[in-house]
């Protein structure tokens, strides 16, 4: 690299110099990172040890963390965990199988189906949640209740019970996110060279074997990615539940999510310190789960081939 400008050079020389230029280019990112990410995180950590009231912020040590040991917190954690497990069980295999179908040469109009399955992902979560709340309403005229009548069952209040409530959430999630997982898997499938399938067929492998021995292992990177973001998405779920129960005040907290609990405590009740402690705990839980998951899939091992 050339040496810097002469001492007598103007600021302009310094600005355009090759040594400083890289820093100038990353400066916007660094600034926005510091202001909008690092500062809030540090602030949250500090606040979680404080009681934050107008004009009277004081340190209270671990009191906020001790308060976490309550019913609402565990219910919210259970709700998010159940939701995550269900979405992993349904939203990984189902889109994977659909992607394999759509990718096969025998499929007609695959472009149409791809778009049709993807469109729900583009809808607004708020609108989708509101419509689902009406579809799964408690009156006799709600769509799902009328469906129950057709099979001889009586009307139920879908959102008053923990099990049916979770069912509604999972249905909403499946409708909404099957499309995007499908796209991920499809793009993963398209990186698998066709010759592998042909040589396997020549060697006598049937469809089932081809699927389990070629497709699934080669899709591992994509699958790990989808699992990681699904775990994150499951624990960060907020809007769907907020719209279905019109707020964070579902009866007996059956629809309460971790984020809903943070919002309720931190903003609605103005307990920013307590809300911060919930947030940090959620971060810790998600980190631990994802690290376990990634280790399990061997992502941290050094490349072997």
């Amino acid at each position: 690299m050339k040496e810097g400008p002469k001492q007598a050079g103007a600021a302009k020389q310094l600005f355009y110099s090759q040594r400083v230029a890289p820093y100038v280019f990353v400066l916007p990112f660094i600034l926005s990172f510091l202001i909008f990410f690092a500062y809030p995180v540090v602030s949250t950590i500090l606040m979680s040890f404080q009681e934050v009231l107008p004009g009277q912020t004081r340190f209270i040590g671990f009191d906020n963390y001790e308060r976490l040991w309550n019913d609402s917190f565990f219910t919210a954690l259970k709700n998010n965990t159940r939701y995550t497990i269900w979405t992993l069980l349904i939203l990984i295999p189902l889109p994977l199988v659909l992607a394999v179908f759509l990718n096969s040469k025998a499929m007609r109009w695959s472009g149409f189906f791809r778009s049709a399955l993807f469109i729900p992902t583009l809808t607004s979560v708020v609108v989708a949640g509101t419509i689902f709340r009406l579809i799964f309403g408690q009156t006799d005229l709600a769509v799902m209740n009328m469906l129950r009548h057709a099979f001889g069952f009586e009307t139920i209040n879908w959102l008053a019970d923990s099990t049916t409530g979770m069912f509604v959430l999972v249905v909403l999630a499946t409708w909404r996110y099957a499309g995007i997982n499908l796209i991920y898997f499809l793009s993963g499938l398209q990186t698998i060279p066709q010759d592998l399938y042909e040589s396997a067929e020549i060697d006598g492998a049937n469809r089932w074997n081809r699927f389990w021995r070629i497709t699934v292992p080669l899709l591992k990177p994509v699958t790990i990615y989808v699992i990681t973001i699904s775990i994150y998405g499951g624990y960060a779920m907020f809007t769907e539940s907020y719209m279905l129960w019109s707020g964070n005040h579902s009866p007996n907290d059956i629809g309460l999510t971790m984020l809903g609990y943070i919002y309720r405590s931190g903003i609605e009740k103005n307990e920013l310190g307590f809300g911060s402690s919930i947030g940090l705990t959620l971060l810790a839980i998600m980190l631990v789960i994802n690290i376990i998951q990634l280790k399990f899939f061997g992502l941290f091992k050094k490349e072997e081939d």
Partner: protein
Amino acid sequence: MKPLNYVFAILLAASMVLAGCSNDKNEGSESSGGSKGGTTKLVFWTFNELHQKFFEKMADNWNKAHADQQIQLEATTFPYEDTHSKLLVALQSGTGAPDLADIEISKIGNFLKGEPQLVPLNDIVEPEIGNLVKSRLDNYAKDGKYYGIDYHVGAEVIYYNKEILDQAGVNPDDIRTWDDFEKAGKQVLEKTGKPMTTLETTDQWSYWPLVAQHGSDFLDKDGNVTMNDAVNVEVLTYLQNLVKEKVAVVAPGGGHHAEEYYGFMNQGGAAAVWMPMWYMGRFTDYMPDLKGKIIIRPTPVFKDGDMRSSGMGGTGTVITNQTKNQELAKKFLEYAKISKEGNIEIWRDLGFDPIRTDVWGDAAMKEANKFTDYFGTQIFEDLLKLKDEIAPVNIKERTPAASDVVKTKVVFSIFNDLKDVKTVLDDAVKSIP
């Protein structure tokens, strides 16, 4: 090519700047700056459009009487939770708050924690304090400073659907105790197949008034939790029993402010409902088919000597410390809610029992209005008879938390899931910090 790219880049930047500009104008109702030529803008947030209409009317009346101090009132109605959350955040962060705002009685505790960011209203309250119902002022006070002015006393009453009672052969004036009510309920169920009443499972108005009139409360006068004491258990056991006997059903939609409930009740779904006086407006506006069929009576009691009513609900209008027009806001608030004219207007437009007692005997209260058209002309005279039997409640810092646990856990578990009353109450008390 290069000049063309330049042109496009500039056009893009310009259009983005302009898009930013137009958003700013419609955004945000932060407190106003100064006045232009004698008109001052005051921003008001509420969660009830009836309150918004009332304030807009009072602003018009003010402007007619005060040509030199015109007010341009910018009022907005947000959903209940959002109003309070937005206001809390604005007050905590120090920017973005309105000049005036409504804070409901179950939420005021959150705003009085720490140093209240509200303007003390002692100088407009104290001159008239002899004429105002003191318990209504104490609900919004801290350390001797009054922060909010309520709309009403909120006297609890019971609304009977006379048509259904007649069909069942029940005379409402014979119902004096809750045991009488239960008997009448069984008769109504037998003769008409309809439930006597509905109970809220996601709100507190079926439960709280009965506790208050029977001599207890959710909190005691020092703010400690008393929600699992004997009175609370007795009330909930009685009500749960009504549900088991099918004399009472769970309110459709979960509460008496749900769309489903209005439709149900409007079509004669139940024979009675107990709610405060301020619920009259919901009848006139949302259940028009019941006009002329509803009569108002004092609620039954558990035992003779209990008060027949209680002061339920309430919304205090406050002035935030971010207002730049404190004096004008105070004078306007005084005119709208403390003065005689204001209180008469509260009755006329909103059908609320105003907090100014010297107005209760005024001739204006007997005039015809949409409430007398609906319920009959002697509403206020009947209310006057209850004047000394309105049990007050303790509104303290823990009220928001207590109210929350009632609305999300207690009544739902007891009326919907029919769980054991004492267990549910004990758990509830544990979860109030």
